[in-house]
């Protein structure tokens, strides 16, 4: 049953501990959307990657900068927007983590996670704003 009214918006400072808080909200939203355990796990994992990237690459751990996470649904889709307050981070410049020369690197797999776990992944950089990441999962 889907009884998620939304939207729900959460703002957090750029501390990794806060990822747990957003994930709890996410799990609640997923339950209201009627997601099963597997889908909830996938959305939660993708969300964690997006928020961690926003803190690291967007806000560069500046605690005065927030990460805003917005959950909403429409047309049978759960949509999550993750916005940082950084200078704009271009994920397309991240090297392919599956290339043989990158396989043993210790970082650079977050976008792969999000693309794998979600039905849609995109980002945009708007003047005067940070990077806005959008991930979607069909309900």
């Amino acid at each position: 049953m889907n009884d998620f009214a939304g939207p729900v918006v959460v703002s957090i400072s750029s501390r990794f501990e806060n990822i747990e808080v957003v994930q709890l909200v996410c799990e609640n939203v997923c339950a209201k959307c009627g997601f099963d355990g597997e889908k909830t796990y996938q959305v939660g994992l993708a969300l964690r990657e997006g928020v961690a990237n926003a803190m690291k690459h967007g806000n560069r751990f500046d605690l005065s900068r927030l990460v805003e996470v917005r959950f909403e649904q429409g047309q049978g889709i759960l949509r999550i927007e993750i916005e940082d307050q950084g200078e704009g981070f271009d994920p397309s410049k991240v090297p392919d983590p599956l290339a043989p020369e990158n396989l043993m690197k210790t970082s650079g797999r977050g976008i792969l996670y999000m693309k794998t776990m979600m039905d849609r992944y995109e980002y945009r950089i708007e003047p005067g704003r940070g990077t806005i990441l959008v991930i979607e999962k069909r309900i």
Partner: protein
Amino acid sequence: MKSAIKDVNGVKVIELQGKITIGSGDIQLRDMIGNLVKEGQMKILVNMGGVTMMDSSGVGELVGCFTTVANKGGKLKLCNLTAKITDILTVTQLITVFDTFDSENDAVASFF
């Protein structure tokens, strides 16, 4: 993340439980394996049976630990992977890098 280390016939077996995620389990894992390497341990097995979630930082740390151990001439292997962890290692193509085993006994025996 909770962890415990035991010795089985000279193999250091690390049992992990919970999340290996950014800012928590990832650093713990690095420190634990780093300390074993400093002690000169060359046979390290990570029992992943209790791991419920591993994000890209956790995977990154596992790769880093693998390299650290290999650079010292040792071996790091994995056992008891859950379906979720197997999926992640498959997606990241790291399943081809790590030696993985269904049981701890088989994994320990493989070191000899």
